[in-house]
């Protein structure tokens, strides 16, 4: 399983033809207490860079963009009941959605864990 990161602070786990997407620990730290996550409908076809989800804190709403294109196969229903999962376990239990990988070339240019860490350190 390979994990990639974007400069929009999303992570992507690749397992076969399915990618799981969430936001990073750094992102949840910046956003503060998450109160709501709006997830895409299953079956939605996302384009790379398009609006995929919205995370809300009390005073801010931030768009989450699709890091790669594909069809949404599953969303994390647990976030509906317990959005705080994004704060407590952003990179495990607080995942957002799973989608098919439309084009593996879109993974080009994404960061690995080490590159992402130095990217965050530079901010």
């Amino acid at each position, binding site marked *: 399983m390979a994990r990639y990161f974007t400069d929009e602070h999303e992570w992507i786990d690749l397992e076969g033809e399915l990618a799981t997407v969430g936001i990073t620990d750094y992102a949840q730290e910046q956003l503060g207490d998450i*109160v*709501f996550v*709006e997830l895409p409908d299953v079956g939605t076809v996302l384009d790379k860079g398009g609006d995929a989800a919205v995370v*809300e*804190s*009390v*005073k*801010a*709403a931030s768009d989450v963009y699709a890091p790669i294109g594909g069809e949404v196969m599953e969303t994390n229903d647990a976030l509906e009941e317990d959005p705080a999962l994004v704060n407590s376990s952003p990179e495990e239990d607080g995942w957002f959605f799973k989608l098919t990988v439309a084009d593996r070339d879109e993974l080009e240019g994404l960061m690995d864990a080490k590159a992402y860490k130095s990217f965050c350190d530079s901010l």
Partner: protein
Amino acid sequence: MRYLPLTDTDRTDMLATIGASSIDDLFVDVPEEARLDGPIHGLPLHASEMAVEKHMRRLSKKNLAAADAPFFLGAGAYRHHVPASVDHIIQRGEFLTAYTPYQPEIAQGTLQMLFEFQTQVARLYGCAVANASMYDGSTACWEAVAMAGRVTRRKRVVLSGALHPHYAEVVRTMARFTEDEIAGAPPALQPRPDNAGLIARIDEQTSCVVVQYPDILGRIPDLAEIAEAAHEKGALLIAVNTEPVALGAIKSPGELGADIVVGEGQAIGVGLQFGGPYLGLFAVRDPKHVRQMPGRLCGETQDAEGKRGFVLTLSTREQHIRREKATSNICTNSGLCALAFNVHMTLLGEKGLRRLAAWNHDLACKAADRLAQVPGVEVLNESFFNEFTIRIGRNARKLVRDLAGKGILAGVSLGRLYPDSDGLDDALLVAVTETTTGEDIETLAAALGEALS
């Protein structure tokens, strides 16, 4: 000037502190050619309290106040008795002169009131959640249509022909800009609402059906039947109520399956005020739709000591955070009118509202029966709450004007509401509330009898 506390000495001292030599120094950024060099010509200069009051009283005397005439107007604005304590409370400076509750620690009065108001509206409408109010019923109606579009992701709107024509016009005006497709229909003067005709217009592209309850002619449609048909096609039912007192007598729209219930709250606590400010009510039956709602919401929480308190919440839906992605551009609510509604409803309570509703209906039944006896008058409605339609076989708009000349405010002619529709000219809406006396009804009956003979 009585509203300006600064003295000339203050002004001089303050300019010195600022380091400016004159007030003009503070307006240097206004281009010189645009600066006015003195009071605008043609406008009067300042005036005493006594003089202003005299001027305004003269203008007010040119109007015929409802209290000074037998009065039968409704059509979206109703005259009810408002207890004196309502006006006393809304004039308390802590309510009247408070701003939006942005700092909840020092706005618990307004916030708790809004929480009580939301609860009252939700229960009256048979819904899970009501917001902290909108501008008025007509704008709430449009906001409901827009919300239905967000929920269903469809753009075709079916309006009942018996929706208040001004509400329909507001929806049509707004929809032109959002490219929603609005299917309206002319009102049909029939004793019963045409549910079958309405249901036949719902299809798989329909986002919502908008039905007034009781409708513009005063009739009471069976919302359950329409709700079922709408839900079958994946559409939402929006129920619009313009007379909240009616809901003390008839089933709530939420109970009958309406998904969004909106309306005008003016009848409770607010008064006629020549059309505004009024009070838009907005509620949803299913709590899962809350995040698609427009407008402010007040919610319960705790403070750092564990005490219960209230805050404005879920504000990420709103324009000041979402900007161009907000659910609505609405920025304010109708707080003081919500307070008036809240206080009046508290004074009424369950028992009072039911009694008030029963009294209104009883008087309206008596009035309908009495007017039906007048030769030339036909009562159209099979059902109604406190407003019904009569047909008089001649131009009702002219008749209303003639009777106004005799000091009788006889009702609202359909010709006034539907200037472009044929076949409605002889219809008159007559509203009867607890403020209407038996003598008023006799006066109207006699005047109609004379005019129609």
